[in-house]
Structure formats: C-alpha cells, structure tokens
C-alpha cells in the first residue's frame, strides 16, 4: 500500500461523508438548501402529495365545513383502510417495475370466499379469514409463476386474472347474489372496533419512543464506527414532528369514536412493509430487481423467487383488503372488489410517489395516496356531486400524479440521478 493511501485512511474520511449530512450540520438554513436541491433534482418525495392534500382539504372545508369534523375524518379513514391495504401490495409490485391488475378481483373473490365459509359453511371467523387470505396467497403465487415461467408480461397475466377471478367469484357465490354478515359478528368487529383514548395515546408514545430509541442506537453505533452520524437536532425535530402528527390524529379520532382497528391494521401493514423494504435483505433485493434485473441476477439473487413472492404478497394484501371492505360493507356480493377498487389502489400508490418505472417508492405512498383519493371521494360525496364529475376529477388527479412522476424522473436524469 502506498503512503498516500495510508494518509488518506488516517485523515478525516471526507470521501465517505454523506453530502446530505454535511449540509444539515450547518443548521436550519441547511435544511432549506438541501430541500431546494432535492426539488430541483427531481427528488420530490412526499412533498407534492402533502401540498395536494392540503389544497384538497382546504377546498372541501371551504365548501362544506363538516368535511373537517372528527366524525367525517374518522369515516374517511375507515373508507380508505381497505383499498389502502390493497395499495400496499401494489407498491411492492410497482417497486419491481411490474403491475398487478387483478387485485380488485382477487379482493372481491377472497371476500366472497370468506362469506361462503363463514356464513354458508358455518366456519368460525378466524379460520375463515385465514382461509380467505390463503386463497389470495395461492392466486398471487400462481400468477407470479405464470409470469416468471412463461415470460408473459405481468400486465397480461394479471389482466387475465382481473377477468378470470371475477368469474370464480361469481361461481363461488353461486345463485346467492349477496351474503350478509351479522352486525355483531366477528367480521363486523374488524370495522366496528374502536380503541379508547388511552390506548390511542399509548400507541403514539410507543411509536415515538421506538423511533427515538432506534435513531439514538443507530447514531451511537455510527459514532463508534467512526462514521458521520445524523445530527442530534435532526432526530429531535423528526421525533417532535412524528409525535405532533400522531397525537393530533389520535386526538381527532378520540373526539369521535376512538382509534379504529381497521386503521391500525392498514397503518400496521404500511409500517411493517416499510421496515421489510428498507431494513431486510429481501426488501433490498426487491429494489435491486426493480432497478436493474441483470445486476440483481449477477449479484446471485434469485430473481424469479423474488418476483413470485412479491406477486404472492400483493395478492395476499388484496385478500386482506377485500376482507376489510367486506367487513365495512357487512356483505360480500357479486360486485365486491369491482368498480374503482383496482383503479384507486394503483392510483394511490402512484399519487403517493411510488414510481411506475420500478425501483423507487415506499409503502407510505400507499397511505398518502389513498388519503388524497379518499379525501376527494369523501368530499365530493359530502357535496353531493354526480358520479360523472367524481370520476373525471379522480382521473385528472391520477393523470397529474403520473405526469409528475415522469417529470421527476426526467429531472433526476438531468441531474444524473437516473
């Protein structure tokens, strides 16, 4: 080893310092600088969605003050939980650079399987739910296998699924058009359960404490390894931000009926899959396949296994979403999972900032995106607008999100962030 190498190794490891961290250490002005650079570089993150959401809420509140009432906001969250859960699965598939068009039909089919098992066959609630979810897993595995084995584009495989599983759904229902769930049954409890204020606030404390503990532990390890750490103020600001946001949300929910179980299920999946994506080898491999399949293959990753499992997860999430939807509707019928379910699930992921081109995104985009779509649908319902206008506006929002995604991609390319 030459002397200059030894010297540079001993000196401050300038070449391994994260530029973002460097800027941040200059204080509050640093945040502004990094923010501007990111926007110009096409790394908009959640910013457009948050702004969009603020605009949407302002408009609806000005037209109809009830929009921001605790009751309506709770209803809004209950409305979006089902499709949002489906959208989490869509995010995973989009990260691979693929698409799953069958999620609507799969969610409907699984809801009907649940209804038939629980009501007609008399299965207890839990085994019936597990069976319905497994049906989703099997369907996803099957579609993933067809996609990988025969090299058929996922678009086509799942388009066939979109029609085919709807047929199966009708067959499962048979002559019964609609199967109702009892108002006080286990299925209904998924939507009807609200946690008292204490539990809501306890969850906020646990979440913030977990974040702070993880951040501090990470910072300590980084310092011990001689790596540049995230500034302490950064962690504090973020922790305060999370705490305020969650506390306000729980406060609003508590002013109505409390924290709904369905919402916790949805948000729980968002957080869980976010951790899987960012912190596990499996999640990393999903990003790798979405970024460059050939690179992933040469790195020794089993691309086909990753693809099949992601499609299986997506359909599993679709099944869970279908069950939540059935619980809210207290019924499963021939139109379960049809209509806008599919469109909303995909639109939510894209509006939230997950790229259609693969390799970029996060499950939080499902949460943000479905809030945007849910707010529009809910607000227009409150205003009593026609379906025609609702569809046109939702379509326009989706289009705007996709254009933004394409523009951001172009911005990244221009700034060499590909």
């Amino acid at each position: 080893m030459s002397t200059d190498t030894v010297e540079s190794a001993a000196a401050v490891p300038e070449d391994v310092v994260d530029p973002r961290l460097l800027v941040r250490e200059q204080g509050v002005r640093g945040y502004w600088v990094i923010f501007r650079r990111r926007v110009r570089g096409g790394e908009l993150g959640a910013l457009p969605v948050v702004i969009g959401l603020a605009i949407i809420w302002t408009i609806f509140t000005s037209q109809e003050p009830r929009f921001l009432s605790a009751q309506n906001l709770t209803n809004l969250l209950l409305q979006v939980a089902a499709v949002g859960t489906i959208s989490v699965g869509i995010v995973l598939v989009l990260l691979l650079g693929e698409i799953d068009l069958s999620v609507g039909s799969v969610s409907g089919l699984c809801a009907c399987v649940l209804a038939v098992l629980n009501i007609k066959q008399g299965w207890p609630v839990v085994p019936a739910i597990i069976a319905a979810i497994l049906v989703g897993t099997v369907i996803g595995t099957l579609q993933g296998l067809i996609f990988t084995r025969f090299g058929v584009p996922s678009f086509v495989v799942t388009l066939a699924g979109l029609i085919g599983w709807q047929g199966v759904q009708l067959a499962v229902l048979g002559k019964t058009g609609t199967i109702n769930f009892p108002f006080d049954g286990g299925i209904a409890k998924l939507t009807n359960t609200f946690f008292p204020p204490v539990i809501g606030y306890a969850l906020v404390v646990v979440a913030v404490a977990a974040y702070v503990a993880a951040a501090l532990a990470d910072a300590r390890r980084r310092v011990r390894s001689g790596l540049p750490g995230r500034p302490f103020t950064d962690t504090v600001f973020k922790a305060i931000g999370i705490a305020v946001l969650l506390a306000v949300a729980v406060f609003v929910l508590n002013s109505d009926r409390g924290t709904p179980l369905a919402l916790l299920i949805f948000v729980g999946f968002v957080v869980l899959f976010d951790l899987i994506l960012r912190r596990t080898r499996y999640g990393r491999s999903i990003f790798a396949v979405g970024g460059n399949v050939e690179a992933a293959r040469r790195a020794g990753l089993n691309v086909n296994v990753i693809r099949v499992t992601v499609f299986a997860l997506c359909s599993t999430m679709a099944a869970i979403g279908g069950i939540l939807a059935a619980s809210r509707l207290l019924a499963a019928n021939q139109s379960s999972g049809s209509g806008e379910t599919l469109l909303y699930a995909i639109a939510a992921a894209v509006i939230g900032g997950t790229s259609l081109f693969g390799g970029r995104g996060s499950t939080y985009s499902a949460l943000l995106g479905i809030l945007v779509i849910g707010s529009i649908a809910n607000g227009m319902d409150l205003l009593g607008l026609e379906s025609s206008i609702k569809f046109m506006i939702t379509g326009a929002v989706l289009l705007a999100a996709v254009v933004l995604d394409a523009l951001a991609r172009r911005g990244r390319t221009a700034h060499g962030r590909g």
Partner: protein
Amino acid sequence: MTATNQQPVLELRGISKRFGAVQALSAVDFEVREGEVVGLVGDNGAGKSTLIKVIAGVGPNDDGVIRFEGREVTIGRPLDAQALGIATVYQDLALCDNLDVVANLFLGREDLRGGLLDEVVMERRAGELLRSLAAKIPSVRIPVASLSGGQRQTVAISRSLVGDPKVVILDEPTAALGVAQTAQVLELIERLKDRGHAVILITHNLADASAVCDRIVVLRLGRNAGDFRIGEVSQEDVVAAITGASDNVVARRAARHAAQPPAGQGNGSEEVKA
C-alpha cells in the same frame, strides 16, 4: 511482481465450446497466476467473451479441463465461479442505479445484524474498501446513477472485491471512458495486482494492455494465436497475432490442430519470444 514459477491460480486446458454450427472455442489454453495481470485480446468474434463466460460459469465449456489452484473443477453456474473466488466485472457494469454505493457494493452479500441489514458495518467496510483502492467516490450514500463513468467503473470493480476473490475478470473496463478516467481505472488494476489478485483484462486497447499487463494472450477465431510477455514483444507483433498476419509456432500448431479434431491438451502454452 514476478510469479512465473508459481502454480497458476486458474488454468484452462483444451477448452472447446460450440454454439450450433459455430465452433466458438477450439482447444483453447489459458492460465493466470497470483498477482498477475493477463490481457486477453483478439478481434471481434475471436472468442474472448465466450472464454470469459466459460470461466464465469455463464456458458460452461463442452470440452476441456479447468483447474483452480491445481484442483480440477467444473464451473457450471455463475455461483460455482463465485464460490471458487472468481469475480467478473461485465462491460455493462450491472449496477442498480436506484441504490446507493453501499447497497450496490454489498448486493446479495449484505451484512446482517439480528436479521436486519447492518448499514453501519456495511458503510464502514465500503469506506475501507474504497480507500484501500484510493478510489475517489464523492459519497457512499448517493445513488450510483449520479456518479461519472469512471466512478461507476470503480464501484463495479470494488464490488467484485467484496468477496475477496482470487481471480478478477474485467471486461473492457476502459471502453467507454475518457483519458483521465481510463488512467484512474488502470491505476485501480495495478492496485488489484498489488493486493495479489489474479486479473484477467479483456480489452481492445493495446496501449492499455501494455500499460498494466504482465502477459497478453491473443485469441483468433476461437483458437490461441499467441501468448506474449510484455516487454519482450512489440505492439506490431500483437496486432499481427490478432489479425492473423503472424506466423509463429502457436499459429502453426493451431492450424495443425484444425486439420485434425481437437485432441484436447497441449497446444499453445509455450511462450513466444518475439
């Protein structure tokens, strides 16, 4: 670093490969020693890539023997090559643009801590690795897409070193680079040599080859067409071997072998004093 008397790390004897009606390789011999940089040159279609694919396990040989550290081995899959300690840097680099440098370096070999990715250890190892190669990367936490061509090449080569391989194969690492970046990569190759890796450098650029290689092996139409020691040979001789204008013992032996079906072992390993 002269290593001529050592046993070769990787030794190929009588390697043949056929694609349908095309005999891509016929009885090719090749060897590389520890701390040695061997240039593999030849015209388009000479069989360089095919030979590399045999070594990397992407396209196994039909015939012939591969010895790794003296042991006879079969390399049927890329994983076999990886397990032996053969790393390949392909021309297209195979990096994930959306992932940062650390993620790319350790892709498929991530450090884990309690089942989760250990970013701290990986970032530290990445810094150490890049510094040991004196590689200039602005930050290990930026997406690879924002790096220059030379930096990307550096990341790709560094990536191949993560498993501490014995043999590193570089497929035209300087093909798309400018002057300064080429120099950067050539320096990197010298560092690989200093670290004791055996390096196989595929290139079209004879100036690059003579700058860093100890030996140059020439392939022509799927056969050995010369094995030259740098410093004992002029660029013209190498060009002659590449184009088939040379008349040397290897070419003549190869021509003889063409008359009879490949007998397996024994041609082309003699060195040609030019």
